[in-house]
């Protein structure tokens, strides 16, 4: 069938984009156990960063990536100090609603500052199409995918082989034991939060040539990112990458065979099924969802 190669390519490329967003979220959710409702808004901020840099100074989004990393890290530190630190030890509800408030504030700050108009970033590579056989892909999509994979790999290496990474994983597993071992959990959380924001900020920059930029752009991706994170297992980076591919696959194949009207029903039902039968995720360890909760 002629469409299959294209469907595979679309799944992979779309999965890459979802992975970028999910990797940051799984870090935050996995280590801090915080449901960050504002995650999409940081994505949106990344997109606007790319847009304004491109419009005002003609800078290509890939150049802005270099600036985005330290910038979003700084934003992470700032928002942690101002908003998140106070609620890290609080109940889930408090955390959820803190991030809800943050989400509302950020969305409307963007609306007031930059209006609700749809903006576009059109660097030279957004129109370049690569064709291999029957499949066509867009250069910007390919780059986003490659960066997602690289970033995930870097994060996995960081978590596995560096001291800081091990400390973070320990805190995720059992925060009381970690404290008893002398780990400064506040610093761990701050780092996790900031790295998480860097990931999603970069995702925004990379996605800016592909999607419109507007204040509520983050909403599109947030719920989906949660589905990926749950599927892949909390705090599990590779799980996030695999989960992204699964969700992208469900979307693409669901759209093709059943009609795009039902694709969301499919992945929400899948989501509920995973939550009910394997809450640790398809790739996570059994029971890990209760640890540190």
């Amino acid at each position: 069938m002629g469409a299959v190669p294209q469907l595979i390519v679309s799944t992979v490329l779309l999965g890459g984009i979802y992975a970028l967003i999910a990797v940051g979220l799984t870090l935050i959710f996995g280590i801090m156990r915080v449901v960050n409702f504002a995650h999409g808004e940081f994505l949106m901020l990344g997109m606007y960063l790319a847009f304004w840099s491109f419009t005002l100074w003609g800078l290509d989004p890939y150049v802005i990536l270099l600036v985005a990393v330290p910038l979003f890290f700084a934003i992470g530190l700032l928002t942690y100090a101002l908003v998140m630190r106070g609620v890290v030890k609080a109940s889930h509800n408090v955390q959820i609603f803190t991030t809800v408030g943050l989400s509302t504030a950020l969305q409307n700050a963007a609306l007031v500052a930059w209006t609700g108009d749809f903006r576009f970033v059109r660097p030279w590579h957004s129109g370049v199409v690569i064709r291999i056989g029957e499949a066509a892909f867009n250069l910007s999509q390919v780059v986003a995918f490659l960066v997602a994979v690289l970033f995930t790999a870097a994060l996995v290496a960081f978590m596995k082989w560096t001291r800081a990474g091990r400390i973070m994983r320990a805190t995720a597993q059992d925060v009381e034991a970690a404290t008893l071992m002398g780990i400064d959990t506040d610093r761990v959380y701050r780092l996790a939060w900031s790295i998480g924001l860097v990931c999603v900020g970069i995702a925004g920059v990379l996605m800016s040539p592909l999607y419109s930029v507007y204040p509520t752009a983050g909403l599109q991706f947030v719920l989906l990112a949660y589905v990926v994170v749950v599927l892949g297992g909390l705090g599990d980076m590779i799980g996030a990458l695999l989960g992204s591919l699964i969700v992208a696959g469900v979307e693409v194949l669901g759209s093709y065979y059943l009609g795009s009207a039902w694709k969301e029903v499919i992945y929400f039902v899948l989501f509920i099924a995973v939550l009910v039968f394997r809450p640790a995720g398809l790739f996570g360890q059994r029971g890990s969802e209760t640890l540190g909760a």
Partner: protein
Amino acid sequence: MSKRGRLTAIVLLIAVTLVSAALIRGTEGQALQGEYKIGVLEPLTGALAFEGKRHLEGYEIMRDMINERGGVMGKKLVFVVGDGVDPTAAASEANRLITREGVKIITGTYSSTLCGAASEAASRQNVIYWESSCVDPRYSKRGLKNVFRTEIDGTGFGWYNVEFIAKHLAPRFNLKPNQIKIAFLSEDSSYGQGVTEAARERAKKDFGMQEVAMEYYAFASTNDFSPIVAKLKQVNPDVVHHIARGNDAVLFWRQSREQNFMFKALVHAGATGYGSPDFGKALGSEGNGPFVLAEPSVGLRLEAFRPEAQKLERDFTEAVKKRAGTEPYASHRLAGAGLWLLKLVLDQAKTDELEKFRSAVMSMDLPVGSMLNGWGVKFAENGQNANERVQHYMLQWQNGQMVTVWPEEFSTLRAKWMPLPAWDQRK
């Protein structure tokens, strides 16, 4: 009562009083000498904010033009604005405008879901609801005497699109209407569904077109059209009827190009998606080709309008350019035309009292070409401006902008690329 109980009661009482005091601002009634106040209700925050804002701009510009031309009933027209971000807010704000600000007429509202709730609230207090934009057909079918709409309803869009495809495009493809293979693609909001279903029905019933695909998608969460494009390629449609809402138009067009999906024409309706200047901003000349049923633009033969309308149109366009820096968007025009018509009615009725207002509305009878966007005026008993009088135009993307190509007596430019040639040959 215990000490604690008493204290609790006192504290709560104080809290409640403070809050209530904050809410009490004193009713500002109607008629400061020389001013006439109406309410304007639009979504100014939330997902529809960008269109609500333009709507409001159109209203404000036209209000200034009206005040330069003698105001309304001899008084200066002023606005009081409400933010109808969702149905509850729309009803609530409508209520506030009526009870707190004392308006007798509310206009707005851009979105179908908002105009329903707001007009319900208005009708319970016998306040006139003057809708200029929402297209839900049921708006005028509730038997409400105070509810009016200047814009055509959604079924009209679908109707016109199919008319265009059958009478104007089919001959260019050397096909009879019942030989046309048509694929329907649409975002699934109330607008998309309303227009698409009307188009589907007409295509089948009146012309016997062959429907080869019907795909609804969720605008907010559709990030990739390639599976849909792949699917449509398999059924090989002649015409794609795509109702888009925003960047979905850009995504679909771009991905169709990437996958070399060939079709003879694409038709859309309305000011969103392909009908938004954002489509051209995103794609430039690569966006050449789609047809859009919308308010007129470049290439409009103003001479086809009546002289008063020509002057209005020119002044309006200039004012919009000065204030917003762009050509008028469709939402500017809809608001402007709606407000101007309101002025005409009020000047004739000389009052906002419902009975006399209604008869003034019903007595308006202006031919096509009379209003700033080329409309005529003739209201039906249910308060709906007749579809036949609301002139609609088919535009096409050429050279990175939307130009007016149909009806031919209203346009200086002509449609190109029927059928659409290969993707890289559309210059």
